[in-house]
C-alpha cells in the first residue's frame, strides 16, 4: 500500500492517540505537532516502523514566535523516507523561559550540528547533547541573534551614514 499522508496519519494516531495535534498538509506535506516530552518517542517510532521508515533527518531548525506566550520557540524536524520519497514535518513547541528539548543525536547523527546551530541562534537547550556550544557565531557572543528582540544590524558601527542608507537625511 502506498505510503501516503493518510497512512502515516493513521499509524501515528493509532500509536500515540490524542497527544499529536494540529495535523495539517500545507503544499501536500503532512505536518503535525507533539508535546516536547514525546519528541524522541515519536522520532523513534517513525524511524523503526517498517511501513513508515523515516530514517533521514533532512532539517532541524527553530522558529521564534514572540507573541505566543508559553509556546514561543517551535523546533521543527523535517523527515524523509528515502525508499518511498515521502516527507513529513514534525513540530515541538517550547517556551523561551525554559527551552529544554531532548536531543535527537542518538537517533540521527545529523542532528548534532543542526542542534548546535539551533542553540547558537535561538537558545534552545538540547538535553543530552554531547557538545552543545556555538557553532557559527563567535564563542563569546552572549545573546541569541535570530530571536526577534535582537536587531540584525551590527550595533557597534560608528560611521553609519543615514543618508546613504536611505534612512532620514535628505536626498539632496
Amino acid at each position: 500500500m502506498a505510503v501516503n499522508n493518510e497512512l502515516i496519519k493513521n499509524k501515528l494516531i493509532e500509536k500515540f492517540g490524542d497527544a499529536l495535534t494540529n495535523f495539517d498538509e500545507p503544499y501536500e506535506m503532512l505536518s503535525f505537532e507533539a508535546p516536547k516530552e514525546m519528541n524522541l518517542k515519536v522520532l523513534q517510532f517513525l524511524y523503526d516502523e517498517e511501513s513508515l521508515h523515516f530514517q533521514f533527518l533532512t532539517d532541524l531548525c527553530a522558529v521564534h514566535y514572540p507573541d505566543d506566550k508559553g509556546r514561543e520557540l517551535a523546533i521543527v524536524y523535517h523527515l524523509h523516507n528515502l525508499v518511498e520519497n515521502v516527507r513529513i514535518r514534525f513540530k515541538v513547541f517550547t517556551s523561551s523561559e525554559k527551552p529544554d528539548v531532548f536531543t535527537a543525536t542518538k537517533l540521527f547523527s545529523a542532528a548534532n550540528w543542526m542542534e548546535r546551530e539551533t542553540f547558537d541562534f535561538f537558545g534552545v537547550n538540547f538535553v543530552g547533547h554531547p557538545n552543545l556550544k556555538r557553532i557559527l557565531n563567535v564563542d563569546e557572543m552572549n545573546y541569541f541573534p535570530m530571536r526577534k528582540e535582537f536587531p540584525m544590524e551590527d550595533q557597534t558601527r560608528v560611521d553609519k551614514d543615514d543618508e546613504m542608507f536611505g534612512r532620514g537625511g535628505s536626498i539632496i
Partner: protein
Amino acid sequence: MRPVRFNIHPKEAVTSSAISVTEAPAGYTGDGFFTAKLSDVVGLARKNSIWPLPFATSCCGIEFMATAAAHYDLARFGAERMAFTPRQCDLLMVMGTIAKKMGPVLRQVYLQMAEPRWVLAVGACASSGGIFDSYSVLQGIDQIIPVDVYVPGCPPRPEAILDGFMKIQELVGQESIRRRNSTQYKALLDTYGIE
C-alpha cells in the same frame, strides 16, 4: 547634492613612438655608471615583482580568479607567483566577506607576514562590511589590520582590481626604506595592537 567627480585629471598616454618607455628614476649618469637613491631603486624592484597572498573568501575571490586568468592577467604586473603562504608574500589581498569568526584568523595571517607588507582590501565587504550590515560580519577589515588600498565594488571588475594593484605599486615604489622602522609606523601598528 553629494558631489562625485571621476577622472578630472586623466593621464595622457605618451604616444610619440610605437613603444612607450617608463621613466628611469632620477639620478646622476656618468660614463658607464648611473647613481640613484637607494629607495628609488629598491622601490622599482619591489613594485614590479609583488607576490600577492590571495585571501579569497567569497564572490570577490571569483573576480580575482578572473583577474589572474589570461584575459586580464595579473601576472604581467609582476604578480606571477601567488604563494599561498604569508611567510613569502608581500601583498595580502583580502577578497570577500570576513565574518567576525574569521577575524582572528585573518589577523594571524597578517601577523605572520614579513615586513615590508601591504594590504589590499578588495570589494565592499572587505572595505566596510558591504551590504552585510549584520551581527556576524566584520564591518571592514581595517578594524583588525591596517589597510593600504581599498578597491570598491560588489564585486569590482578585474580592471578595478588591477587599478587597485597599480595603486599598491605606486605606494611600493615611493616608499622610503626607513618607513618600517619609523615611529609613525610603530604608532600605526600600536593602534591595531600589533607589536
